[in-house]
């Protein structure tokens, strides 16, 4: 590596465009929000920076704290479901024959290339009361009814098919998050499973460990960096989501992202919105610090 003094002109030509862009259009805006969190509203659009802590005090009131807590749990639940679904998928892709691998990988990545809004919209058609999931369930119900009625058990299923209300509640939000962010979990898992030394798995099996034991004691510890990366990649966007909870959630599915959005767009309480944004940001940093700690503890780096 050269010292920047060896070719200062080249150095500045390489560094300045990106560096300035980051400074001007990322760090400065973020700093503005940080400062605004210490402001007070002095008119419909005017904000005076008084370095008050009232916004943070308000943001830490039970109502908002509860929202943070709820967002945390919904994100954590969705992340856990993603992990459970993704592990066998990543394992299957990384142990697939060489010629099937690119196709399988492609199939995992492809949905990620579809607009977030379109994928969330597609979910609405599946989940709503007259949606495809209820349609399928009704079909099964009718079949079961036809089977059970002759043996006198038809009454068990009730008079008519009652569609499940799948949309506009918290379950739909979790479902939507899992649907949208699943590829983010599969890819890092695949990346670590692909690189791991297979002879270790063979050794474990040869020495008499069962597949389950090998999975628990060999594969999972070796895939640890990928697991941690996947959790972070799903958890952080899930924590700050507002589109999914907005379109799929019900009146009680407001997450912290929705509240922040409202402060900036409709309610126009920018100082409170800024304080909430920074609390969300601090939660993110906490999650990242936790990841660094977890990755370090296992002696691996993702």
């Amino acid at each position: 590596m050269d010292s920047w003094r060896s070719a200062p002109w080249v150095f500045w030509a390489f560094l300045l465009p990106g560096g300035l862009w980051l400074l001007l259009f990322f760090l400065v805006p973020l700093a503005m929000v940080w400062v605004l969190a210490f402001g007070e509203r002095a008119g419909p659009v005017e904000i005076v920076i008084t370095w008050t802590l009232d916004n943070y005090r308000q943001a830490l009131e039970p109502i908002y704290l509860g929202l943070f807590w709820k967002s945390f749990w919904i994100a954590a639940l969705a992340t856990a479901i993603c992990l459970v679904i993704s592990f066998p998928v990543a394992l299957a892709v990384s142990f697939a024959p060489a010629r099937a691998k690119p196709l399988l990988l492609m199939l995992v990545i492809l949905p990620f290339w579809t607009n977030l809004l379109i994928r969330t919209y597609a979910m609405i058609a599946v989940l709503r009361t007259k949606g495809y999931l209820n349609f399928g369930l009704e079909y099964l119900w009718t079949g079961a009814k036809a089977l059970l009625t002759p043996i006198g058990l038809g009454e068990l299923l009730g008079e008519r098919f009652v569609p499940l209300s799948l949309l506009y509640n918290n379950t739909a939000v979790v479902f939507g998050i899992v649907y949208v962010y699943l590829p983010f979990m599969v890819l890092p898992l695949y990346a670590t499973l692909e690189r791991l030394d297979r002879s270790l798995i063979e050794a474990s099996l040869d020495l008499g460990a069962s597949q389950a034991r090998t999975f628990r004691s060999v594969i999972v510890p070796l895939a640890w960096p990928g697991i941690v990366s996947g959790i972070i990649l799903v958890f952080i966007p899930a924590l700050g989501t507002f589109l999914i909870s907005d379109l799929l959630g019900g009146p009680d599915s407001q997450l912290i992202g929705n509240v922040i959005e409202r402060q900036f767009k409709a309610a126009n309480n920018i100082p409170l919105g800024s304080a909430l944004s920074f609390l969300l940001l601090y939660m993110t940093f906490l999650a990242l610090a936790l990841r660094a700690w977890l990755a370090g503890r296992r002696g691996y780096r993702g």
Partner: protein
Amino acid sequence: MAERRGAPGPLEYTRRFWVRAWLAATFLFLYAPIVILVVFSFNDSRRNIVWRGFTTKYYAKAMANDSLIEAFTNSLVVAFLSTLVSTVLGTLLALALWRFRFPGKPVVEGANALPIVIPEICMGVSLLVFFSSIGLMSGIPWPASLTPIVIGHIAFSFPFVAVVVRARLEGFDRSLEEASKDLGASEWQTLRYVMIPFLKPGIVAGALLAMTLSLDDFVITFFTSGPETITFPIKIYSMVRFGATPEVNAASTVLIAITLLLTVIAMRMQAPVRGEGKE
């Protein structure tokens, strides 16, 4: 691995029945909603639940919807500009971080990683605050009204490009660069004839990623578009809030098709180079 009949070997997880079933179920979960969306954009019924016959009338309707077309054009313009600038900025920054030692380097590296990791909504609101404070959010005539969106998209895309290009640079043999300079090539010639050809797969991959991120984005666009600016996600969002209609399906299908097409083209461009660069 040769295809073998009989019981799957201990490591042939992909040949186990339950793993296959799991894989199939996951792909069904991932694709069924999108496939349904596409199929029902051709359905001759306003309530898109029962198949009533093939029609393309919702495409005609979407085409006749001027604001939808305007939104579409805007999104493509934003994606194009953002990809172009992000690719250049990201590649240059990757070169700077790879080649030079300088005070404050960890700060630059950290600042480059931040847009990748922080929640999009935090970045969205900060850009909204920033652009409204400099008066760029409203009252600006069209193409210029797209400026905040383009700037925002570049800000979250080019760090990804930098990461991808830097990964490619890790495999670069510096003696090639030295040889070029020893033979009298200038910095520019070395960049143009040695570095860029080597980096091409990384640059193409980065550009593809930047384009995808831009076409994929909802959150940043939502916060950086002024009241008079309509882009595709904003338009669809307001249509969805009014209720799901087959026009939304048709418009979404077109966007999916465009994204797929661009991806396939980019992969074609990348494929031969990737084979040649294989170590």
